[in-house]
């Protein structure tokens, strides 16, 4: 290596090139799935009403690329003992992240414009993304290991968001929604330069300070909260009656809080949004229903917490401590599923309790029930929301429980490649009727694949004595009941097609598949 910056850049790319690739592909997958669907629906991406959607997706790109870049760069602390000045560490990191995020945005917009004819502008978002990532990075370093970090990052992110909102007009009404940063003004350029220069200056101060162990002075609130919330267990607590009870306690204490805490945060956040922006009592009910209906979304994150049996957050391989418990793998898996069920039950109870209390207050204030619950909300959604949430969490958790994240990433990449192949085939090769045949084929294949994999999981688990026949039969009955209910509900709607019923039957299997999958996953993870 001829220079320190070159060596630093090489080291970063060597250690984190897979993060870079994974986040880039992940972002393309998410956005191309949505735009692929919109393209099939015949949406014109140059229509002014769609411009706001484009602006939001550009933000998604920026967020994902920034997270990926920060992940592959790693903390600068690993370089603190090298004989290099702090300014070199700062410039080595910030320039690489700016170039990396900028280039990814540029390439992504180019791909979107090529494939979907979105006509998104190149330079405004690219320069903004580069300035934004270095601002956030410098703020993170400046508040490292400090309770100020969330506040400072929120303020900087808020200012950046306001700037972006002003130039792209996300959700800013009909006039501004047509603005998509088509031209980079001198003011914009001044802003980019100011943000970048400030970031370099702040970064230098931060790294020089962090290098010798100095941190920002704490507020004391964090320490006080830790003292207050630090629950000291009862010394006279009775021993656990069984290993399963002890393991359930372990799982609950470690991961059970995930979903209830998500609901609590969702309620607080939703209430704040309502108080600041909405203040219409009739929309409270809708807000509650949206929160309850979309709990599967935060469930995606909770699933990976629940499915992690590793020593650290990024290592899913079961550690020695858990692996050496004198307990059968299927029993261990059952405690994880039981904890998940309890966590979900508590989460939905909190949601339902808050909804009931709010509803009672609104009724007492003279509102009628139809003001609180919109008429078009189907009754079955009250069952579908928790079942869907259970399926999402337990299926993903089972994948996590295998302890093989690289294998999972490879499968994701393969699915992405398959999807891209189908998309290209659909866009460039097939005729309209061929495209329809392909969609129908995928629609049939999807539930059949779910049913096939579920059957294989049960047969394998039975063969390995990881599930008993009685449990398997009970799960089959539950699946039949849910499928029947889904089909009966589906028949109430006109124009129901066979493929729709098949998809419902396939999706119903996801509710019971984790019973076998979790046991197999734990066993596979525990004994390698």
């Amino acid at each position: 290596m001829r220079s320190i910056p070159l060596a630093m850049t090489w080291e970063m790319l060597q250690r984190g090139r897979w993060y870079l690739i994974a986040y880039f592909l992940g972002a393309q997958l998410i956005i191309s799935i949505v735009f692929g669907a919109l393209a099939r629906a015949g949406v014109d991406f140059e229509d002014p009403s769609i411009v706001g959607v484009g602006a939001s997706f550009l933000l998604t790109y920026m967020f994902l690329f920034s997270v990926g870049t920060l992940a592959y760069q790693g903390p600068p602390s690993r370089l603190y003992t090298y004989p290099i000045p702090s300014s070199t560490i700062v410039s080595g990191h910030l320039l690489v992240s700016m170039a990396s995020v900028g280039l990814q945005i540029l390439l992504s917009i180019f791909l979107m414009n090529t494939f979907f004819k979105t006509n998104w502008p190149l330079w405004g978002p690219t320069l903004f993304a580069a300035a934004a990532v270095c601002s956030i990075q410098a703020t993170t370093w400046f508040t490292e290991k400090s309770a100020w970090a969330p506040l400072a990052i929120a303020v900087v992110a808020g200012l950046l968001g306001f700037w972006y909102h002003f130039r792209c007009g996300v959700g800013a009404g009909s006039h501004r929604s047509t603005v998509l940063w088509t031209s980079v003004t001198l003011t914009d350029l001044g802003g980019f330069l100011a943000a970048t220069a400030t970031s370099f200056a702040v970064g230098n101060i931060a790294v020089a300070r962090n290098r010798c162990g100095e941190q920002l002075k704490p507020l004391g609130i964090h320490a006080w909260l830790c003292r207050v919330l630090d629950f000291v267990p009862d010394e006279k607590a009775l021993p656990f009656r069984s290993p399963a009870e002890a393991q359930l306690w372990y799982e609950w204490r470690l991961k059970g809080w995930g979903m209830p805490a998500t609901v609590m945060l969702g309620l607080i956040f939703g209430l704040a949004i309502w108080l600041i922006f909405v203040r219409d009592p009739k929309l409270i009910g809708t807000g509650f229903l949206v929160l309850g209906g979309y709990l599967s979304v935060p469930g995606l994150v909770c699933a990976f917490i629940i499915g992690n049996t590793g020593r650290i957050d990024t290592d899913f391989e079961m550690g020695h401590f858990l692996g050496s418990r004198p307990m059968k793998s299927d029993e261990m898996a059952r405690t994880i599923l039981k904890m998940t069920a309890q966590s979900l039950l508590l989460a939905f109870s909190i949601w339902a309790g808050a909804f009931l209390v709010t509803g009672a207050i609104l009724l007492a204030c003279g509102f009628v029930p139809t003001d609180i619950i919109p008429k078009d909300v189907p009754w079955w959604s009250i069952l579908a929301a928790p079942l869907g949430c259970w399926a999402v969490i337990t299926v993903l958790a089972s994948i996590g429980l295998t302890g093989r994240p690289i294998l999972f990433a490879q499968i994701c990449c393969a699915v992405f490649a398959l999807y891209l192949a189908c998309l290209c085939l659909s866009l460039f090769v097939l005729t309209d009727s061929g495209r329809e045949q392909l969609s129908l084929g995928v629609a049939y294949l999807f539930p059949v694949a779910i049913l096939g994999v579920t059957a294989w999981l049960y047969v394998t688990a039975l063969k390995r004595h990881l599930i008993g026949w009685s449990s398997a039969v009970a799960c089959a009955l539950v699946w039949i009941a849910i499928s029947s209910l889904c089909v009966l509900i589906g028949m109430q709607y006109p124009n129901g097609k066979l493929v729709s019923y098949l998809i419902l039957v396939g999706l119903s299997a996801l509710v019971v598949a984790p019973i076998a999958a979790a046991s197999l996953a734990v066993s596979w993870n525990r004994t390698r």
Partner: protein
Amino acid sequence: MLDSIPSSASPIVEIRQLTRKFGDKAALNDLSLEVPRGGVFGLIGGNGAGKTTLIKHILGMLKAQQGSVHVFGLDPVQDPVGTLGRIGYLSEERELPDWMRVGELIRYTQAFFPNWDESYAEELRESFDLDKKARIKTLSRGQRARAGLLVALAHRPELLVLDEPSSGLDPVVRRDILGAIIRTIADEGRTVLFSSHLLDEVERVADRVAIIHHGQIMLTASMEEIKEQHRRVTLRFEQTLDRPPELVGALSSTGQGKEWTYVCNGETTQFRNAAEAIGATVVEEAALTLDEIFISHIL
């Protein structure tokens, strides 16, 4: 290499022709080993020799790709409750849940072992000076090791498996705690299997030793046998030699000119006769430390 078992009882750990590969690299290569009941069994080897991989097989965390592993006559993969319930284990990383308090760790671990001895656990906690309310994450490395030992010992396991127990412990803790525990367990007729590359420690406490190198057992025998069989013999030759002559029973040799020192394995009479036959005289013969024996086997 298998040797005769001193006890008439069946071995507590029986490993036959075990092979384990990670990718192309063989971590264990056709390894066979028997750990007899009772006493302290030291597993010694350098970094990457395969000690931890072997222990993971004994605990059922790794499945034998080839060969078989039996602990208490059971397959640890098929019967984790039957085997792990009778094993006390302290991992090299001292892996314990950071979020737990010491008291919670004791209460949690107790549930898995029907033979848990509450008074013994309390006695150990007091002697290790562990505060029940202290969180694991706030413990020092030494205290963490003590907490790990406590939960590994308190159910009075038939087999105590310690993977590199000395790392992270200061010399005083090593001598006072580890030595005492290992001897206590052994005296009670239980078995201790511990891996280490700190050979002075193994020499102090182990009754039997196995040397593992590149995934193979190079030697297994009782400590007395090993000491008796390995001697350092210094020979003086009549003429100056550039290279020492090959002699039967010699493992390695160092020296220059007329004086060469050999490390011998086995009965030295044969070696002496061979030396005398080529005109060499024995200048000195001495016992070897385990450290020297280990190095002579792996180099």
